[in-house]
């Protein structure tokens, strides 16, 4: 179960580098959990900063964690949902008792706003491995998602207005988060009027670029009993992958969420109707739509009309991304960490003005790569029955 969470500073934190984001989030999570640092015997980092700066073994050294269990699983933005899956099993098996997961990125301060349109490679550089088959064509991160959106529109008649509704709803939550990078309310027309980055995705269909970091701590039921916070239970977690490089996506109108979602909910023993809060990876509006369909909240192909019914809004049946999401609040590159930390805040009842009433079950679904590797974690304030 999850007993501690911490965030570093966001959305702009020029005083922190990637490692310091990890460290600050870790210190806050340790304090929040009410444990001693020496209690930690498991450690997980997906890295992501490059150059071995913040990989698991580097960070375990920096933090001086005497681990019995270490995991460096890196599936892009969904890494942290995979970490929950792995740690739940490791703790259940006694591989470790109390594990820390950390993430940190200084993306905004270090490189600026250009996420996803800088290309995958530098010119004149020989590209090896599977990427050599894509590099000559100048696709971008945004373009990879745009190709999904284009196919979804073609097959199902999904519209830009429907995608825009997702951005509008998330922005409403961001307007209530003093730390969110974008807080001004927007309309569907605002999204449609923003410039195209990669057709059919507009600028406001795309996530923010921020600095930020997060951490969470998982432990055994025995240890959780003596800790100050009410624990958050991991009811089920699962992951699946269809591809990594975008050209290998098998079907551009669905994703591995269609495998991982039902599996995670089956492990958890819950159905769609049991869910109170959705924390879905909103790198782009189309990401949310495809996760919703894969998880079973909307039938395949009907996600567009479904979101227009307002289910994801504040006060809706399935409020989504109550912290303001990656679209409007915090997206330092791998947002899956914040799906977990915000779900825990809600399940504890600590979410203030955006608190979802009587929030007992949250579904966190991370998307890594280009809707490539999907990790799903079902969390609850109540012990599994």
């Amino acid at each position, binding site marked *: 179960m999850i007993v501690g969470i911490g965030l570093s500073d966001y959305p702009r934190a020029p005083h922190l580098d990637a490692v310091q984001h990890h460290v600050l989030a870790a210190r806050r999570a340790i304090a929040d959990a009410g444990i001693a640092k020496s209690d930690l015997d498991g450690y997980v980092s997906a890295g992501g900063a490059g150059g071995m700066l913040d990989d698991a073994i580097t960070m375990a050294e920096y933090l001086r964690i005497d681990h019995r269990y270490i995991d460096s699983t890196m599936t892009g933005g969904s890494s942290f949902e995979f970490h929950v899956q792995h740690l739940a099993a490791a703790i259940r098996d006694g591989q470790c008792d109390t594990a820390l997961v950390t993430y940190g990125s200084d993306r905004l301060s270090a490189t600026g706003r*250009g996420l996803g*349109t*800088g*290309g995958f*490679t*530098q*010119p*004149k*550089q*020989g*590209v*090896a491995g*599977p990427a*050599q*088959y*894509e*590099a*000559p*064509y*100048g*696709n*971008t991160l*945004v*373009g*990879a998602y*745009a*190709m*999904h959106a*284009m*196919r979804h529109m*073609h097959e199902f008649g999904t519209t830009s207005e429907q995608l825009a509704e997702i951005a509008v709803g998330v922005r409403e939550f961001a307007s209530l988060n003093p730390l969110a990078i974008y807080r001004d309310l927007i309309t569907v027309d605002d999204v449609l009027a923003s*410039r*195209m*980055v*990669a*057709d*059919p*995705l507009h600028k406001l269909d795309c996530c923010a670029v921020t600095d930020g970091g997060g951490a969470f701590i998982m432990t055994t039921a025995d240890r959780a009993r003596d800790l100050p916070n009410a624990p958050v239970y991991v009811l089920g977690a699962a992951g699946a992958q269809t591809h990594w490089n*975008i*050209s*290998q996506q098998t079907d*551009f109108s669905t994703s591995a969420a269609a495998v991982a979602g039902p599996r995670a909910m089956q492990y958890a023993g819950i159905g769609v109707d049991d869910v109170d809060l959705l924390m879905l990876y909103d790198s782009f509006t189309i990401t949310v739509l495809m996760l919703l369909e894969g998880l079973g909240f909307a039938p395949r192909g009907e996600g567009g009309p479904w979101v227009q019914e307002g289910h994801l809004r504040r006060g809706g049946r399935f409020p989504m991304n109550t912290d303001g999401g990656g679209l409007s609040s915090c997206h330092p590159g791998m947002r899956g960490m914040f799906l977990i930390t915000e779900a825990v805040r809600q399940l504890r009842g600590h979410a203030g003005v955006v608190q979802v009433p009587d929030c007992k079950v949250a579904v966190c679904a991370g998307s890594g790569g280009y809707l490539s590797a999907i990790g799903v974690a079902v969390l609850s304030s109540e012990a599994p029955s």
Partner: protein
Amino acid sequence: MTDWVKPLPLPDNVSAPYWAAAREGRLLVQECPQCGNRQWYPRALCARCAAEPEWLECTGRGVVYTYCVIRQMGTAGFRDEVPYVVAMVELDEGPRVMGNVIGVDIAEVHIGLAVEAAFIAVADDIGIPQWRPLSDH
């Protein structure tokens, strides 16, 4: 030969025949002699059954399966070409391949557009497959 300032592939022992064939104006995919699976990109195994794949020369014709229009791209070589189309093309032979759709008004590109391969010679041993609307045959 075209002066190519965009990223170049680095041919390896699996990919070298693919790039060399494209230099000669031929498009290759792989076919598995054991299970019949056809695949792109080329691999050192059949991704379905793990057998040793063989090369299959394609007609070079297909249809646009999906695409996007890149309007913002910082990398040199591409920066000056925006907007341009990146597409997945479904070959008549089955596999999907990536490429740019060139020689066409972007507004006329759509899913289902019939296209044929056009090869750009960029090095002695490398041709880059691209796509243009299928001319009447």
